[in-house]
């Protein structure tokens, strides 16, 4: 029995009838359809669970694959290359030739000489007349020796062009690596490029096809961009004295070209070169902070020294201080300061690698 089923008066009847009528106030079909349309629009319908699971599974698989790839790239490099140091070469990935002796004679025609382990200092590769040989140098670099050329490895395991012409192709080096090749008293340092080194009885020459190289002698350096050439005397000290004699007697005892610098090449001042050398020494001693300090000071200046230091700052920050974000910022700064800098390509590549 309901409340007020038997009303006592008109008021109670009014209440009961009102309550009974209110039970049928359910809204019309049209209004409900309208509301549903709005509700369905407002509420973002979740995807079916199976679909969501598939999305999560694929996302997890992608992440795993990315992590695997990263680990492979990262640890492959770490295990296949020795501890990186600036201005030294990657260890060749092959073993010494059987019966490593003072020299190795090469057969005629261009061929790849397989190296099976680190080259012993003093080991020599020579080509005879009509012979050409391609030598794997490690780190993906190759040297193609022309006829009547010889190549050896110095005490720091750097390849050294003793005589003749060597065409070198150096791929972009792994993070932290610089590739160096010596020619007489000069050290040619690159990050990734193609160039040619030729050593005659009296002169050493470098022709750059791609990239940027630096030719160092003691604390003096000359930077060469693609298309530029440089040559200097094989024996600079003798050349210096000979040139003074030549000035007096105009005799032919002087070197063919006493250390001329190409018009486009940018020499680094000795003070700057010394600063860079100091920074490098500090870095090799493990004092990255000191290297950064020296380079920061140098980078505040102008010219190629500042440019070089600005690039190196990013390099050290990335690979020695292990601060990739800060390194990218420093390289960005370099790009803004030197939009057409010689190390612009290297900077771009370094940023891409870091990112």
């Amino acid at each position: 029995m309901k409340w007020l089923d038997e009303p006592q008066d008109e008021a109670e009847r009014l209440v009961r009838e009102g309550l009974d009528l209110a039970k049928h106030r359910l809204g019309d079909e049209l209004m409900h359809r309208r509301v549903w349309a709005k509700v369905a629009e407002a509420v973002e319908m979740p995807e079916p669970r199976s679909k969501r699971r598939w999305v999560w599974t694929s996302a997890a698989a992608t992440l795993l694959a990315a992590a695997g790839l990263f680990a492979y790239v990262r640890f492959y490099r770490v295990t296949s290359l020795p501890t990186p140091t600036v201005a030294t070469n990657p260890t060749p990935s092959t073993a010494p030739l059987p019966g490593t002796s003072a020299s190795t004679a090469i057969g005629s025609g261009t061929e790849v000489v397989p190296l099976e382990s680190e080259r012993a200092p003093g080991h020599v590769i020579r080509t005879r007349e009509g012979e050409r040989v391609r030598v794997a140098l490690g780190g993906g670099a190759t040297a193609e020796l022309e006829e009547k050329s010889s190549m050896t490895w110095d005490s720091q395991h750097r390849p050294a062009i003793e005589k003749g012409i060597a065409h070198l192709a150096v791929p972009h080096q792994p993070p932290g690596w610089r590739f160096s090749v010596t020619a007489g008293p000069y050290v040619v340092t690159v990050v990734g490029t193609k160039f040619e080194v030729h050593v005659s009885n009296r002169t050493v020459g470098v022709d750059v096809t791609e990239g940027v190289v630096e030719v160092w002698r003691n604390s003096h350096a000359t930077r060469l961009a693609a298309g530029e050439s440089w040559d200097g005397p094989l024996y600079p000290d003798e050349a210096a004295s000979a040139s003074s004699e030549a000035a007096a007697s105009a005799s032919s005892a002087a070197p063919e070209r006493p250390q001329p610098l190409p018009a486009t090449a940018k020499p680094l001042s000795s003070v700057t070169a010394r600063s860079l050398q100091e920074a490098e020494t500090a870095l090799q001693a493990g004092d990255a902070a000191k290297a950064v300090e020296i380079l920061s000071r140098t980078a505040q200046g102008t010219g190629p020294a500042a440019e070089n230091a600005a690039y190196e700052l990013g390099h050290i920050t990335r690979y020695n201080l292990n601060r990739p974000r800060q390194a990218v910022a420093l390289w960005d700064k370099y790009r803004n300061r030197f939009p057409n800098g010689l190390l612009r390509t290297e900077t771009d590549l370094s940023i891409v690698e870091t990112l």
Partner: protein
Amino acid sequence: MGPNQYTKTPLPGPTVIADTELVQACRGGDVVAWRSLYDRYAPLVHRFASALGVPAEEREDAVQDIFIAVFRSLKHFRGEAQLSTWIYRIAARHAIRLGRRRRARETMRVTMMKEKTPIVTDPSERSTQLATLDRMLGKLPPKKRTVLVLFEIEGLSAKEISDVVGCPENTVWSRLHHARSEMVKAARRMAS
């Protein structure tokens, strides 16, 4: 008249099992289940909102807001109460909130604009009894009104009402008793 003498109309709509299955399907993202749930409970929500004094021009939006709240919080529904009870709880809170805002607006209008509150009538409801009932329900405080509506119109038991409004069953009975008395008094005043 003791509590046991009260009777209630049977709860319209689905069984508990069907609701449980519907909730599971909705949680699984079944759009058809969402629509079924809406179709099942939209009329009830509309009726409940009407009885709680949501005016006709706001009713459609109110139902919409209530269902959006239901859909968004369905993942938190633990199944301890009936689905209908849970939906009534959301609807009651929303309707009371709307009523509070409406009263605040009316007070502002009266005090600031010196305007008399217009009597809102539902053009679709031509029934005089319904209009009279709304006026009588409007005299009740929200808590008593909610209990009366849930019991007399929605047909919920005292236990279910206590779940909806969050108070003990005895309080429900007490509020219902007072609400009924006040309703009859208001009706008598209006009739005279």
